[in-house]
């Protein structure tokens, strides 16, 4: 098939069908969704809480208290800390363990809860955090 017949074929095809328009709108919405998602990831850091393999995400700039797997987590004023935990050693607990920079995390091993601040510019690796 030559180029000319191909072009002719497109010209002959009917204008946009309703399904095409619906598809187009869906795609545009998706694109904006992804763009917004990208923008939020860059400056608005998020708090990722993982318990037994399940992850939930919250805005760092929000105020809330979460109860996850025996751990009470407070997100407040752009920082996160563990208020209380049912574990024995309490290594993760307390205001002096509060974190607020992308890349930092708090791990409660006995309860299998991991709190991590995600965001643009976070280092790939953070070394020396209390275990």
């Amino acid at each position, binding site marked *: 098939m030559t180029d000319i017949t191909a072009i002719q074929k497109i010209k002959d095809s009917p204008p*946009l069908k309703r399904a*095409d328009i619906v598809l*187009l709108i869906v*795609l*545009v919405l*998706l*694109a904006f969704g*992804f*763009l917004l*998602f*990208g923008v939020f*990831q860059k400056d608005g850091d998020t708090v990722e809480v*993982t318990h037994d*393999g399940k992850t939930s995400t919250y805005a760092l700039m929000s105020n809330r208290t979460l109860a996850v797997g025996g751990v009470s987590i407070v997100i407040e004023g752009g*920082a996160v800390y563990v208020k209380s935990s049912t574990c*024995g*050693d*309490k*290594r993760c607990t307390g*205001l*002096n*363990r*509060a*974190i*607020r*920079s992308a*890349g*930092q995390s708090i*791990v409660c*091993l*006995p309860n*299998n809860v*991991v709190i991590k601040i995600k965001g*643009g*510019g*976070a*280092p*790939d*690796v*953070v*070394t*020396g*955090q*209390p*275990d």
Partner: protein
Amino acid sequence: MTLVMLFVFLPALTGLVGCYAGYTNFSDTVFNSEMYLSVSYYGKNAQAAYNAMTSELAQLEKLVNRHNENSAISKFNAAPKGTSIDIDKRLYEILSAAIGVSDKTDGAFDISLSPLNALWHTDSIGLAGDAPMSFPDYTEVERVRAITGLTASPAHFSLTEADGTYTLTKHTDGFELDLNGYIKGYAVGRLSDIASIKGATSALIELAGEVAAVGDSYRDNAARPWSVGIDNPDRDTEGFSSFICAFKQAGGFYLATSGSYRRYYDTDTESGTLRAHHIIDGRSGCPTGIAYEDGAYRADGSAVTSATVLALDAGVADAYATAVCVMGAVRGAEFLRDNGAKGIIFTANKEMHVVGEFEFMDGKAYDHYREYTRIDYEVAV
């Protein structure tokens, strides 16, 4: 129509191809729920590689975990003197390697100090909320110190091999071996081998703070150095945990940080507030940074608060980092320099000892190291 779709899809796709496109992430508690494993894997066979890693860890745990009463090490620790235990070839190799690292550090890294950790209440498991109000009596410290040490004479233990039989024998009641401080480094080395063999072109493996970076970081279709942040041993001025610095590092390294700011408690003494923590100096029997002089415990103002080691050999980064805390900043830095490792050491009196070249990252979040007086050590190439 095709064109329209392209225009819509392109931004959508670029939005998606963010930082870690292509990496498969795994994480879980391992080692009898005592360690946290996190793996970011780029390449083929991700799931198979992760499965191989966790089964490797389960095997190691059976051999060395002193908190699991069924492990060979636990059986040795619980046995009275005079007991000989036949051990697996693998455990023999791990013990030999750990003793080899200890020799190299002239005993600064020591796998026999858990009785002292128990005495100081800084055992590797749990520093429960009930920290002691006072430090142990020094006569008690000396008594316990006498049953520790790998090179004591007469020997507290022997490790022998004869005709394919590997034997661990105890000569002193109360002597214990604790491989938990060594096994992270050893295990991370094994896990990074597994990643490479299974086909990872880039992977980041973190086990209880010990890190292996296989290959470079792969982002936006290009290989780049990894960015590494070091935790600040002190709270920042507003009381938050923060980074002390961050740097870029090309892949193919092992990384660990030891410091007196983890697993610690503070106690008021007649010479001020002192900090007991989990890193014990086998020569004094005290946590590093605490000396016993003229009948009282005193603080060593030049003590290492945080030591980060970057090594090219598996299994040594964590042990070297611990050894540097014991050796002190200058001797520790020289040790790293002479053994082909890089490092960044921070001290209580605000010195920063830098061994080798580092490309520090700019930014307010990574700036605390500028409060320290910097001393550089060149690594001979």
